[in-house]
């Protein structure tokens, strides 16, 4: 019944329904999150016997004085700022174009969606060749414009750019699909009304498409920011298990990975995870605040 009052029995029943998912979530999400928060305060830890003999802020102090962590934070921010706006703009542009064509539109949509379903490792292998300094397609293409060969993956100056280009391309597929859904949801009447009101194509775009697409743009950018802050596998695959030439593509998650798996400094790894958590939280809260004023549902 719809107007049923919650009783002990009905609450218990609801809990039973929720239980299977709850067990999985608690085991694999909630517990590790809590554990890593606690772990970030372990300063003396015997991991062979799982005995913590001292808690404190030493791990965070270490992070703030570790030049590697500074590089990681800087690189992560560069990556986010480089990838997210480009992804939003390019995928919106491609979605607008795809929305216009009727000829073979299904084929084109599939082609653009392919990067999303392809494994990152496979993509990285292909881009590895594209970026190849001597035989790569990209340098070959640039040579037409008189640009000298660039060693994309070996030079610390270009490694981050190479990583950003590949990530943007990889992100396009899914975001294009989201934008296409958003575009299809805009009623044709608004465009007709705008035309009647004297809006040319550009004004229709800025006054109808952009504001009415804002929920999707918001979704894509929040999703992009969170995903980009957590970047790891693209780096691992593109630079063959290294954080780029002279740490030029060292990001926070890569730093965390190194501390955890190669140096066994669990406390420091957990602390860097906590720092990342608060960075993402800060940016997402800012985005939510911004969306209150500029996103029209």
């Amino acid at each position, binding site marked *: 019944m719809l107007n049923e009052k919650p009783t002990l029995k009905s609450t218990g029943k609801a809990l039973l329904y929720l239980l299977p998912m709850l067990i999985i979530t608690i085991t694999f999400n909630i517990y590790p999150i809590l554990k890593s928060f606690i772990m970030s305060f372990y300063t003396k830890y015997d991991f062979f016997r799982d005995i913590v003999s001292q808690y404190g802020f030493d791990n965070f102090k270490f992070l703030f004085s570790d030049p590697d962590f500074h590089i990681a934070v800087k690189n992560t921010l560069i990556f986010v700022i480089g990838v997210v706006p480009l992804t939003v703009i390019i995928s919106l542009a491609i979605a607008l174009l795809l929305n216009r064509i009727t000829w073979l539109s299904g084929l084109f949509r599939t082609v653009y969606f392919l990067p999303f379903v392809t494994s990152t490792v496979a993509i990285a292998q292909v881009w590895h060749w594209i970026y190849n300094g001597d035989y790569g397609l990209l340098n070959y293409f640039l040579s037409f414009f008189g640009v000298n060969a660039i060693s994309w993956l070996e030079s610390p100056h270009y490694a981050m750019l190479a990583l950003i280009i590949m990530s943007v391309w990889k992100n396009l597929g899914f975001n294009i699909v989201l934008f296409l859904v958003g575009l299809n949801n805009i009623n044709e009447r608004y465009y007709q009304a705008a035309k*009647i009101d*004297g809006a040319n194509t550009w004004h229709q775009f800025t006054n109808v498409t952009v504001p009415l697409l804002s929920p999707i743009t918001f979704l894509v950018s929040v999703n992009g920011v969170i995903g980009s802050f957590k970047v790891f596998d693209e780096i691992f695959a593109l630079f063959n298990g290294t954080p780029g030439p002279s740490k030029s593509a060292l990001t926070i998650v890569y730093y965390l990975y190194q501390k955890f798996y190669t140096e066994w400094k669990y406390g420091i790894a957990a602390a860097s995870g906590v720092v990342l958590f608060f960075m993402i939280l800060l940016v997402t809260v800012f985005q939510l605040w911004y969306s209150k004023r500029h996103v029209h549902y």
Partner: protein
Amino acid sequence: MEVTFKDVSLSYDGSREILHRLNFTIPEGTLVSILGPSGCGKSTTLMMISGLLAPTSGHIFFGDEDVTKQDALQRKVGMVFQNYALYPHLKVLDNIMFPLKMAKVPKAERREKAIKLAKLVHVDDQLDKKPGSLSGGQQQRVAIARALAKEPSLLLLDEPLSNLDARLRIEMRQEIRRIQQETGVTTIFVTHDQDEALHISDHIMVLNSGKIQQFSSAETLYDNPSNLFIAQFIGEPVINTIDIEDFDDELTDHVDAEILKRAKKVGIRPEALQDHDTGADTLATITTKVKTFEKFGREKNALLDFHGKRLLTTEIEAELAEGQELPLYLQKSGFYLFDQEGTRIFGGDQDVE
């Protein structure tokens, strides 16, 4: 502005023609309704006037100017859509100002003009709200204000009242009439509701299956329907339609034999069946049998049996019992004969002295 269609046809995919060689002129400063059943092409006709749709062949004129090749941007008409299509992200004031913004009118002037229009349509107390929080009637008023903002020479309304409840509909159609008369803008109003069309317009164009059936005043449509479709479409309750064979010889002495021979269908308005002799207005008498007799408030409806066919009359004065014999007097006005093609060959003004 005067709107003229010359041999305008439209087909969507090149094979299926939706509108067939429309020819009409809408006089300047009038309110004209385009009336017709669903799918008759009335909204399509409006879209072609607005420039959102281009005709497949033929020419459209605004005044003396041929606008066939111009798109909606260039034609500069005002239009109210069926679901209003107010920009959901803009406040009421910004919605009304939008066409002025597109026309690059200075901001202060824009505001002043929009507020004036909001007053005209009585939404000046809603200016800071978003369309989503307005009622249907208020949204409709805002849509009219937006359409009027750029002072169009032509205002197009596409079933603007279909989303409103019955009472509001009557109020809004009077409002539309008032606004039209205050501004004097040539207005074209699309509707499927004959009541709306009859009450609001100077002239009514009835469309059916892509052809103009009749284009005249409301009164003419009712009194002189040019064909069977109009006779059946206009009027509530619906006109009684029976075959000419259902009459024995009741009409023989009263209608020309030549016409009777060509006639196929007989149309009798419910009010043209009187239960008392009206003298010179009476055309003929028939004998019927009462099947049912109903009273609701002022209305008295009698369903009658005439040679096995059903006739409805609204003009009974006495109380009737079911099954009783009832002689009826056929009135000259409200009695029509139609030929094989459905064209009226008898009845209407020409046959009423």
